[in-house]
């Protein structure tokens, strides 16, 4: 695949060119208030110096609130009370610049849920597959980063169309997909170069600084019920608040709630992020709750990430090691520790 560089003084033009003359929405790391986020932003607001964005980039394809369909109640017009899909036609494709390799891998995990063995989520598919994802490799991983612990790498190419790293204040880019090569080669500021060798060396050097793999062999081979019934869950759950912060910042958490809202003219059906930490998430109409206390709810999250997803996704871990939940958990429930406990 082709390799390129973008010199520091050409960055601004390059970022602007990524929108293909406004045909694509550019999402890139930039400050929103005092938080670094993956957002639609001007070329000169983009920063290259960061550990990772505060929230995961999943909202680019799976917004926290997303209208799915709408209906009207006007009986003088056609199809009253019949839901019609929203947002699928003319969805403007995006280009994500600066997504970290761990997050890109997380989106692949989510993609396998949104496009599972039986159903395809058209809202996700349309947004995800029409986007171009240019990753930015980590040369200075953050204190809670552990992608290398869960089968990833700061230079992982999974789920990316191209991978870049910061070189002399500018960028070195390697195309991964043919689409990306096609996309990149004519862009302003892009020059052909050879960077793969340097990239491979950097990769080795950065990986060497990072944590080694977390041993999950026994989790992988163990029976579900044996892990499910381990005694440590209760201890961890003691301090869990069921606050759901971990689920909201996690790049692979994909759960949502479907809600209808209406007025006298019509209504919409939308989905909103939901969290398995919530009591109401599983409660039956009868009042019976299969996960009645915080212990079951917290266990569910870790079982899902570390046991269920690997079972369903050929062994790939549901945690990609971005470390956001470790940083933000108010009671320091650390998925790395939980993984160790699960592994016995």
């Amino acid at each position, binding site marked *: 695949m082709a390799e390129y560089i973008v010199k520091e003084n050409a960055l601004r033009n390059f970022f602007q060119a990524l929108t293909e003359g406004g045909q694509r929405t550019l999402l890139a790391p930039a400050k929103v208030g005092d938080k670094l986020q993956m957002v639609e932003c001007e070329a000169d607001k983009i920063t290259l110096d960061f550990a990772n964005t505060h929230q995961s980039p999943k909202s680019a394809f799976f917004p926290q609130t997303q209208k799915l369909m709408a209906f009207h109640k006007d009986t003088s017009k056609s199809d009253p009370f019949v839901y019609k899909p*929203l947002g699928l036609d003319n969805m403007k494709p995006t280009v994500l610049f600066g997504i970290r390799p761990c997050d890109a891998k997380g989106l692949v995990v989510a993609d396998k849920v949104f496009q599972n063995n039986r159903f395809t989520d058209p809202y996700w598919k349309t947004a995800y597959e029409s986007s171009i994802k240019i990753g930015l490799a980590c040369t200075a991983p953050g204190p809670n980063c552990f992608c290398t612990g869960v089968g990833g790498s700061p230079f992982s190419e999974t789920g990316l169309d191209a991978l870049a790293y910061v070189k002399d204040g500018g960028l070195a880019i390697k195309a991964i997909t043919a689409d990306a090569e096609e996309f990149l080669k004519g862009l302003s500021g892009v020059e052909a170069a050879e960077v793969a060798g340097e990239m491979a060396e950097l990769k080795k050097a950065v990986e060497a600084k990072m944590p080694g793999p977390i041993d999950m062999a026994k989790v992988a081979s163990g029976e579900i019920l044996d892990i499910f019934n381990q005694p440590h869950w209760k201890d961890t759950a003691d301090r869990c608040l069921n606050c759901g912060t971990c689920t909201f910042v996690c790049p692979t958490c994909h759960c949502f709630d479907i809600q209808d809202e209406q007025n006298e003219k*019509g209504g919409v059906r939308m989905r909103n992020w939901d969290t398995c930490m919530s009591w109401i998430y599983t409660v039956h109409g009868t009042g019976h709750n299969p996960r009645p206390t915080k212990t079951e709810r917290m266990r569910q999250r870790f079982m899902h990430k570390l046991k269920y997803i690997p079972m369903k996704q050929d062994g790939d871990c549901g945690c990609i090691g971005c470390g956001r939940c470790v940083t933000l958990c108010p009671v320091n429930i650390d998925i790395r520790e939980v993984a160790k406990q699960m592994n016995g």
Partner: protein
Amino acid sequence: MSEFEPKIVAFFCNWCTYGAADLAGVSRLEYPPNFRVVRLPCTGRLNPKYILEAFKRGADGVWVSGCHPGDCHYIAGNYHARRKFMLLHHMIEAVGVEPGRLHFSWISSAEATKFQEVAKEVVEKVRACGPNVNFRKAELNLGLPEVA
């Protein structure tokens, strides 16, 4: 353009103000028709979220009225309500709801004239605030071409 007619949600205690409104009616005391009345067993039953919900759904004003202190059918419901209302009143004005949108009164079932007076006052004060545009949920955008 005709004068703005506010929509006001009125929460009346069953034992007093609701009766006063009835009495005002049978006494042919004229009062403005801008209210949608919700009858409550007691102002103590009024959860503050009802008031917020009324505004959120587009009410221009809210009026809560119950029994005079000491006259509560349930002994102390209105005393408890008074403390709640005081905080809520303060709270919503502090976060930017215009003063003059939320009203409280004590009106016994015999006070038809007071009912008439307060009703007029409430409507005028809410009218002076203009339509509630800030503290209401935005109209649902259906995004359907055929009803645009």
